[in-house]
C-alpha cells in the first residue's frame, strides 16, 4: 500500500530529522560555548564595518523567529501521520503547515494567534497536547480516577481480609474456650482460605 510506504518513509525521515536536530543542537551548544569562552577574541577582532550591526540584528531576529517556529512546530499535530508533530513529520501537508507557521511569524503574529489559526481549521485535535475542554477533561483526569478507584478497591479488600482474619481468630479462640469441638474445622490447613462471611 502506498500509505504504508509513505508512513514508513515518514518514520525514517523523522528519525533522520531527529538526529539532524540533535546534531544541530550539539552544534549550537558548541558555538555558544565558543562564544562564551572567547570574549577577548571577539573584542580583538577587526573593527566592525558600518553595515554589520544591522546585519547582526537581523540574524538574531531570524534566529529568534526560527526558535519560535521550531517550538510551535513541536506543538502542532500532523493530521496525516497523527502521532507525529509537524516538526517531526515529512508529510507534504506538514511541510505546508510549517511554511504557514513561518509566514505568520514573519508577519508578526503571536504564538497564540498561530495556534488559534490552526485550531479554527482542524479543531482542537491539531494541538499535540490536548487543551482542557469539556470533551477532554476525562482524558486528563481518567488515569487519576482509575488510580483512585484501584487504590480504594485495594484498601477495601485488604481491610475486609484483615477483619475476616481477626474475626476468624476470635471464633477459634472462643470455640477453643467454650467447646471441645472437632479439631479439623477449628484449625483448617489454611485459615486464609475459609473466611466466615
Amino acid at each position: 500500500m502506498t500509505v504504508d510506504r509513505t508512513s514508513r518513509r515518514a518514520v525514517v525521515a523523522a528519525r533522520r530529522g531527529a538526529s539532524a536536530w540533535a546534531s544541530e543542537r550539539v552544534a549550537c551548544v558548541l558555538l555558544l560555548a565558543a562564544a562564551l569562552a572567547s570574549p577577548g577574541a571577539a573584542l580583538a577582532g577587526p573593527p566592525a564595518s558600518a553595515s554589520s550591526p544591522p546585519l547582526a540584528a537581523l540574524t538574531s531576529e531570524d534566529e529568534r523567529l526560527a526558535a519560535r517556529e521550531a517550538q510551535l512546530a513541536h506543538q502542532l499535530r500532523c493530521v496525516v501521520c497523527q502521532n507525529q508533530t509537524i516538526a517531526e513529520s515529512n508529510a507534504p501537508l506538514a511541510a505546508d503547515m510549517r511554511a504557514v507557521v513561518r509566514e505568520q511569524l514573519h508577519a508578526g503574529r503571536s504564538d497564540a494567534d498561530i495556534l488559534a489559526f490552526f485550531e479554527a481549521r482542524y479543531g482542537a485535535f491539531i494541538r499535540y497536547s490536548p487543551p482542557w475542554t469539556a470533551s477532554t477533561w476525562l482524558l486528563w483526569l481518567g488515569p487519576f480516577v482509575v488510580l483512585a478507584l484501584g487504590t480504594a478497591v485495594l484498601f477495601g479488600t485488604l481491610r475486609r481480609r484483615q477483619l475476616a482474619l481477626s474475626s476468624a481468630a476470635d471464633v477459634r479462640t472462643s470455640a477453643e474456650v467454650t467447646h471441645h469441638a472437632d479439631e479439623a474445622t477449628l484449625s483448617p490447613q489454611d485459615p486464609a482460605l475459609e473466611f466466615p462471611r
Partner: protein
Amino acid sequence: MSRLMWPLAVFLLLAALLALGMRRDPRTLPSALIDRPLPAFEHQLLDDPALRFSPQSMRGQVWLLNVWASWCEPCRDELPTLRQLGGRDHMALVGLNYKDQLPAARALLGRVGNPYQLSAVDQEGRTGLDLGVQGVPETFVIDAQGRVRYRHQGPVTEQVWRERLMPVVRALQ
C-alpha cells in the same frame, strides 16, 4: 457470586467501549468548519485560466465542493461515481483541484469524464488548509447561505452518496 459480578460487569463495559472504538477510523476527524461559513477563496478555473471562481457565486443553492487531485487514486476512482450520481440527482458539484499538475488534471478529466460544473485550482494547497483538508478526496456539503454543513473524507461511493451526502442535501433543500 456477587464477588465475581462486579469485575465481570466492568470487564464487559470496557470490552463494549473498546469494541465501539475499534469500529471507528481514527484517521477521519470531525471537521472544525461544520455550521461555519466556508472560507472565502478565489482561484482560476482548470478549464479556463482567464476565469476565476469564488464560492460567493454559489449563494442561494445547496452544493457540493469536492477536493480532488489527479495524483490521488481514490479521487480517480470516485470520478465516474460522482459524474453518474451528480448527473442523476442534478447536484451542483464544484471541484477544488488540490496541489496538482494542471495538464495531468485536465488529461484525467478528459479521459474519465468531468463530473464538475467547474474546477477551481488550489495550486498551493492554501485553500485546502483553510478547509482543514487532511487528505484528498474530501467532499463538503455547502448550504444556500454558504455554510459548511457536512464533510465526507475519502472517496464517494454509491452508498456514501445515498446514505451520507444526499440526506444532508435533501434536508437543506
